[in-house]
């Protein structure tokens, strides 16, 4: 069974039709990427999954259960967490507090172990543990956003443009860690404008253009297609 199934999803912002009926699937254990240019509706898709915007129509199934329209905090409880666009860290809180908030709804004994795991993935955060998150560099903030999302122990991790505004080297690091996270069993839906990196790391890919999915295939195959090479990889 697919972990996530989106069927004919439409989302509007007032008169603006941001998603015009998209359908996609995320298989358990995979990294699925959603690429597309500015304003295509990538973030809107993740917002709809997280419950931040309500679908106008269509359905979102997670582990077979409909979650479309549920409140954001309930969706986290169901096992989906997000590192949002722009990182969304709480600059007025410390790194430690940000991480603790990631596990806000958890009451199990595994929180501490998960924090150690997250700090193992991002040793930089350990050095900055008691520092205000607002003082972190952009790359460190992105690491914090991902680590914090992991603290919810998600079965589906949503990442919205983790490479945004980062130096190539930092982007490399982040993508290596995304691979590690996936290798340890977390399914990931990755939104990116950096199609090169995204197609490299993902198993499956969707291309979104003005609210519609125009291409869908195995990531390796899409990376070879003329259209993607021309429009999104800047070659040919």
């Amino acid at each position, binding site marked *: 069974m697919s972990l996530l199934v989106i069927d004919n999803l439409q989302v509007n912002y007032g008169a603006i039709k941001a998603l015009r009926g998209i359908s996609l699937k995320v298989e358990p254990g995979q990294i699925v990427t959603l690429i597309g240019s500015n304003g295509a509706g990538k973030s809107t898709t993740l917002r709809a999954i*997280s*419950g*931040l915007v309500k679908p106008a129509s269509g359905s979102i199934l997670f582990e077979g259960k409909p979650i479309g329209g549920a*409140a*954001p*905090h309930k969706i*986290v*409880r169901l096992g989906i*967490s*997000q590192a*949002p666009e722009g990182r*969304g*860290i*709480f*600059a*007025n*809180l410390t790194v430690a*507090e940000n991480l*603790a*908030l*990631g596990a*806000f*709804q958890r009451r199990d004994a595994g929180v501490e172990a998960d924090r150690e795991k997250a700090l193992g993935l991002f040793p930089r955060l350990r050095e900055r543990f008691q520092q205000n998150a607002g003082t972190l560099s952009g790359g460190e903030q992105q690491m914090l956003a991902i680590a*914090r999302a992991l603290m*919810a122990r998600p079965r589906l991790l949503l990442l919205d443009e983790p490479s945004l505004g980062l130096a190539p080297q930092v982007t490399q690091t982040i993508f290596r860690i995304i691979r590690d996270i996936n290798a340890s069993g977390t399914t990931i839906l990755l939104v990116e404008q950096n199609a090169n990196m995204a197609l490299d790391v993902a198993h499956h890919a969707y291309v979104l253009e003005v609210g519609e999915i125009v291409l869908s295939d195995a990531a390796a195959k899409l990376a070879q297609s003329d259209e993607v090479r021309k429009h999104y990889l800047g070659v040919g």
Partner: protein
Amino acid sequence: MSSFLQTLIDGVTVGGLYALIALGYTMVYGILKFINFAHSDIFTLGAWMTLTIAGWLGVQAGGGATGPAAWYVGVGVLVLTMVFVGVVGFVIERLAYRPLRQAPKLNVLITAIGVSLFLQNFGQLKFIFGTDPAPTPLLLPGVTLFSVGGVSIQLVDVAVIGTSLVLMLGMEVLIFRTRMGSAMRAVSFSTRNASLMGINVDKVISFTFVIGAMLAAAAGFLYTLKYPGQLKQTADGMWVMLGLKAFVAAVVGGIGNVRGAVLGGLLIGLIEYLSVAYLKSEYRDAYVFAILILVLLFRPEGILGRATVEKV
């Protein structure tokens, strides 16, 4: 010297009351970004419920024949008043503000004014508090504890300052040391991102209103201790003025900042009492608002506030 000391004590006492009220303004502003105009009426309600609940518990006004109440009766009145007013705060948020979560800020502001007018006028109903002033209960004996520098330290001053202090320290712990507190700070930073953490934002907002109302209720209780005599009816302008000064305290300290509210409250209380003692006392309110104007001119974000750009 002795009068200076007495002025300081009075300033700190009243400053503590302002601080307790200012905390409610500042917490609600921090989370919902609107000025809860009805908050001063919550304070008024606290004072009137103190009187009412003390009456239920058989405490006589002005001492009566029975003399002051036992200390545990006083504590009981405080706790019951805070609980009652906390419930009122919860209900107000639920009925008046929650339906407007997606509405423009101006609508919420106007609603707050509506709630304020409602509370003021509802309180005047015959079967509520009525339109006549009522005598405050004698919850503490009027004893002098000790003398310093020719000033006799009264039990009420110690009780008022002590209670404010305990509540303010409690807030400090709540906001900076507990899970709920970090949720409140997260919500106040970004509602949307807080919800992505699995925080039930509506619950945090309710909680904030309840806590703010309880602190204002405590201030109302302490007010009746500090100013025994006749309690003015709920629509009297004097309540609005007190609430306004507490609001000024919140702004001076940095609206949205809880430590700023405490600092602002103490500062405004001290400035008010020092200026009354050493300058023209008729202008006591004017001094407070002059401070507000100065702060808005030279440090608009308040003493402890951080400069932010208005979100559009």
